[in-house]
């Protein structure tokens, strides 16, 4: 199949896919008897039928269920996620505020994943069955087994509370005025504003949550790098290269690693979803004002549309990243045909 057909198919499939999920969530949520108005309106307001009626109208709860859903989907198709009961403003605006924080965290975790995970994997492969290999294996198993929210707590307790090496929860030191918002990622914004103090503070705050979040994916990436590098090193052309008398490092970096990285790219791409999942929990621990905390807030208000908004945006990001990975894959390795 040709690449563009494949991309087109993936994109076309995405729409019904996302909509079917909203339908599922919608039906499920209406099986629950709890009324979101009970969370938002006070005792006194609930006794005033006019206020209750106005609220029902405002949140579209006065219409029959199927109409509510059709209106929701119709708006969704026009890029409108509806209004959030929890924050009383358009969900799109909420997402615009909270998504960059999550992306910043996720991308930083990705940096750790790649720049620690791959070297570890390479080391393990080169020193196969010797102590670096065992160490990496143990570390990566720990990485995939340790619950991020627990690891985050332990590290925060040790490095912040007891040793005071790193700053506490939040994105910036409290006495620093946030740089003007442009991308919503404070590290980037402070650089754009030339505010080095804010940048340094933001970076320090980013370090621990990103490391914690990246711990899981680091494990998977180093594992796959190790095994694929071992595969490649056993191939004939590597032997040929060595026979030609090329330096060992040249062989590994020029010939072996390049090919070995192909499966790694896939895993890195797929790990993006894990990172997004983990971000929800990591944000809670580090008081990181991102999508995860927003979703938790929305859940406490039974604010279904906001939760769906978060879910859809994360799913969308995830699908796009996967698509990019597929394309990257096809470019790195021309032998591979996508969509098979």
């Amino acid at each position, binding site marked *: 199949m040709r690449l563009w057909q494949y991309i087109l198919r993936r994109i076309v499939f995405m729409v019904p896919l996302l909509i079917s999920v909203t339908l599922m969530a919608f039906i499920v949520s209406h099986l629950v008897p709890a009324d979101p108005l009970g969370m938002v309106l006070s005792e006194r307001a609930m006794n005033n039928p006019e206020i209750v009626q106005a609220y029902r109208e405002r949140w579209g709860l006065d219409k029959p269920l199927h109409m509510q859903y059709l209106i929701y989907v119709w708006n969704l198709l026009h890029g409108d996620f509806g209004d959030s009961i929890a924050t009383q403003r358009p969900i799109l605006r909420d997402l615009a505020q909270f998504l960059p924080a999550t992306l910043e965290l996720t991308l930083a975790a990705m940096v750790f994943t790649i720049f620690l995970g791959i070297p570890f994997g390479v080391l393990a492969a080169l020193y196969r069955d010797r102590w670096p290999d065992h160490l990496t294996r143990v570390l990566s*198993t720990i990485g995939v*087994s340790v619950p991020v929210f627990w690891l985050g707590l332990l590290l925060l307790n040790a490095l912040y509370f007891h040793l005071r090496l790193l700053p506490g929860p939040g994105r910036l030191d409290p006495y620093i005025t946030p740089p003007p918002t442009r991308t919503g990622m404070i590290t980037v914004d402070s650089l754009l504003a030339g505010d080095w103090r804010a940048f340094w503070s933001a970076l320090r705050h980013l370090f621990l949550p990103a490391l914690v979040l990246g711990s899981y994916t680091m494990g998977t990436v180093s594992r796959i790098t190790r095994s694929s590098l071992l595969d490649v090193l056993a191939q004939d052309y590597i032997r040929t290269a060595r026979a030609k008398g090329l330096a060992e490092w040249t062989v590994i970096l020029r010939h072996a690693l390049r090919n070995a990285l192909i499966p790694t790219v896939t895993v890195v791409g*797929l790990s993006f979803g894990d990172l997004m999942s983990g971000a929800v929990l990591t944000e809670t621990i580090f008081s990181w004002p991102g999508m995860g905390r927003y979703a938790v807030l929305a859940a406490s208000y039974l604010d279904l549309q906001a939760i769906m908004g978060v879910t859809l945006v994360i799913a969308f990001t995830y699908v796009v990243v996967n698509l990019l990975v597929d394309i990257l894959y096809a470019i790195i390795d021309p032998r591979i045909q996508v969509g098979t």
Partner: protein
Amino acid sequence: MTNTVTSTVWTLQRGEATRGRVRAAWRALRRNRAALIGAFILLVWFFIALTAPYIIPYDPDQQNLADRLQPPNITHWFGTDELGRDIFSRVLYGARISIPIGLIVVALSSLMGMFVGGISGYIGGLFDEIVMRVADAVLAFPSLVLAMAITAALGPSINNAMLAIVVVLWPTYARVMRGQVLAIKSMEFIEAAHAIGVPNWRIFLRHVLPNSYTPILVKATLDVGNAIIIAAGLSFIGLGAVPPTPEWGAMISMGRLKFAQWWIATFPGLAMFTVIIGFNFLGDGLRDILDPRIRRRA
């Protein structure tokens, strides 16, 4: 997510499982150190879960405000929490909650996945198309995020969290199963079997199941850990187990804001970590042993 990659690998290979191979695998398992360690850890935890009510020193829900927030000591090995409950007792008792959650969720989702995937592959056509699209839809989401959305919609409780995790986990099993069924269906001897009147269920039991149990068993073992983590994560953000249930994730959540009282969150987390690492060691070991392609690498 790596499981998706490896499971597609498995669907492509057509290993034939024989009794001999099972025995060989058992011998290999005994030689695989990681798997043995994993199995040992799990045995210890299963023992704890089964005997918890008889071995714990205190009632896990018993509050004793005079002894609140005590650091670990002789009478309270893991200290006490904000309500003066004995954390050691709660952690051990928690094994009766988290481990069954993992096992039940994986059992349900693998059975559901195998059933739906098997039928889907067998019938084919529109039904197959729909099932696979639904599976795609579920797989398009990061698992915890989807589980969170479902639990939030249903309302927080352990049962709803488990239901949500089943919804998230079944599609990979369905895919593996469907792949096996499709592969088998096209084989000549099956057509022959059909022709001589062998019933479908026999074909299924004799030929389909034995070919798919390997990847499903390995995946299921690894997934128990996943399920426990997701359930604990949901409890941690308040969407899973509700107090006073001594679920590990909920206990960690309680200790979240108590930096000075590190023991509240540390011990339940440690318990969860060891259980998960047990399942991961065992699962990795099983994979090394049962999957020849990967075994060659390791």
